[in-house]
């Protein structure tokens, strides 16, 4: 084959791949958006009632004859489990990243990182089952509640996002140039002072990216959460009462409702909300990445 033909052939194949992905992403967004917005356009539900309403029961109508589709309990639930699981996982992730990068790099590369990668590969249903029989039972044993709730869900989620956050944190700390550390030691800083003031400080943007990627995973996880959170669409009053998340309501309801009904439309609206949230997370990551790049010159 002549060289210019080969060139063109390669261009066509790679271009087709890009076009396919673009078409796929655009169709996906358009589809979720068109179904999700039908709730407001066709079924006459006010956006405010959906976002701020506290009663979720689309099979029943309220006093005015409108279906009760308040999504606030699920929005609260989703944010609560996301933030709490990150709060649990982050110190552990950064702590082990410091140990692996700064204290024992050999052990880290040979033993710890493969171990962490093993955690990534475990399917979420397995986490859910372990959560159901271990975490829920443990919570029940000391709290006197049923054990299902935000606390159990956050513990399970923390274990699930731990590998993501840890391996990204390890990468973040390892990418801090060695000269920084040597400069710090030359000035007479101890190892702890070097880690705290130099390594962590200059890795902050990458560590924040790691955190937000972990939060994105926690926000979107459905199966394991659904098994341990109790799935009760009420505003979470405590960490120990059953609650629900956007994803758990979606997975439980989607197969049961026929297309075109109000319930089905509202579920699409929940999906749209989830998608919008992940877009926000990605946007934040890009903003942080941009800022970090500017600071490092």
């Amino acid at each position, binding site marked *: 084959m002549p060289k210019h033909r080969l060139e063109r052939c390669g261009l066509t194949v790679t271009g087709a791949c890009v076009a396919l992905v673009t*078409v796929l992403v655009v169709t996906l967004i358009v589809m979720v958006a068109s179904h999700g917005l039908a709730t407001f356009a066709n079924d006459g539900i006010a956006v405010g009632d959906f976002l701020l309403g506290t009663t979720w029961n689309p099979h029943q109508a309220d006093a005015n004859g409108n279906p009760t589709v308040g999504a606030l309990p699920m929005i609260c639930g989703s944010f609560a489990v996301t933030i709490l699981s990150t709060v649990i996982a982050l110190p552990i992730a950064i702590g082990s990243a410091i140990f692996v990068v700064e204290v024992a790099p050999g052990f880290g590369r040979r033993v710890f990182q493969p171990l962490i990668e093993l955690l990534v590969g475990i399917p979420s249903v397995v986490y859910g089952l372990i959560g159901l*029989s271990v975490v829920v039972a443990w919570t029940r044993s000391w709290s006197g509640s049923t054990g*299902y709730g935000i606390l159990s869900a956050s513990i399970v989620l923390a274990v699930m996002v731990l590998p993501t956050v840890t391996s990204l944190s390890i990468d973040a700390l390892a990418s801090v140039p060695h000269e920084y550390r040597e400069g710090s030691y030359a000035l007479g800083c101890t190892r702890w002072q070097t880690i705290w003031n130099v390594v962590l400080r200059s890795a902050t943007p990458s560590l924040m990216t790691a955190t937000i990627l972990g939060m994105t995973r926690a926000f979107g996880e459905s199966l394991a959460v659904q098994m341990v959170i109790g799935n009760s669409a009420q505003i979470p009053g405590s960490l120990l009462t059953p609650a629900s998340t956007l994803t758990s309501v979606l997975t439980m309801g989607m197969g049961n409702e026929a297309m075109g009904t*109000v319930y089905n439309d509202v579920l699409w609206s929940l999906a749209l909300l989830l998608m919008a949230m992940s877009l926000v997370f990605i946007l934040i990551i890009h903003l942080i990445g941009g800022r970090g790049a500017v600071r490092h010159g």
Partner: protein
Amino acid sequence: MQARQDISRRQFLKVAGGVAALAGLGLVGCGGSNASSSTASTTTTSLSGSITAVGSTALQPLVEAAAEQFMGANAGVQITVQGGGSGQGITQISQGAVQIGDSDVFAEEKLADKADASKLTDNKVAVVGMGPIVSPDVTVSDITLADLASIFCGTITNWSQVGGADQAITVINRASGSGTRATFESNVLAGITVPDTFKPQEQDSSGTVAKMVAETPGSISYLAFSYFDDTKFHALKVGGVSPEAASVEDNSWTIWAYEHMYTASTPDAATQAFIDYMMGSEVQGSLVEQNGYIPVSGMKVTRDATGAVSAN
């Protein structure tokens, strides 16, 4: 340099257009082949064609087992059985996207436009009985239907109110809109509206519910008879009647529902043959019982979409 970029951009657009056109053609092609295969099966004498059955996950194992046997006897027929839930089954059959829609509930209860249900043919292939189950530490073994309704409305919250020990009741409900919950609510609550303030836990899979009731003290939920397991939890009697097939058949146990396989009002030959096979003795006499269902042929009563019961 500028010229080169221009070319690649133009080529990119060409490629993008090509891919879009291909995708469009593919969709049209799919639609077309579906139509032609169904016409082909009506013209040939021996059965051939492909059938897709979508819907209820509860009914899926039975349809799969029957489809396997049917395909063994009719080599020309290809049957694909998919889950997805009763809502999916009803949606897809009323859109004409599949040949059979499996459902735990009457189509009238699912469709936004009730008139669409009359365009479908309802084939009741089996009966499923359901009953309340409690965790092993609950001492109550018999409960009235009214007390059961009160528990699931949140007005009775302690086992001592129904003759048990002083222990809080943890209600574990099924996903709103699931066939099991619809059956339970229409037969137990019978029109009572659950107050919005009562928000019990919800779970969507029977297996998970069984595990939760076994492990959560003071809990109550409900399951199809086939999931009953006396070693892990107790099934309650309701008004003195035991949850068993014989009491469902004469309607003395009222918590039961049909399993439906909806087809178009004029299904193609292969689909009709498969439905006839489902209703025949090879399935009703053996597979139905093996999968924990009650054969329709044994029922002494009939119930319609509105819940009215008449003797056979």
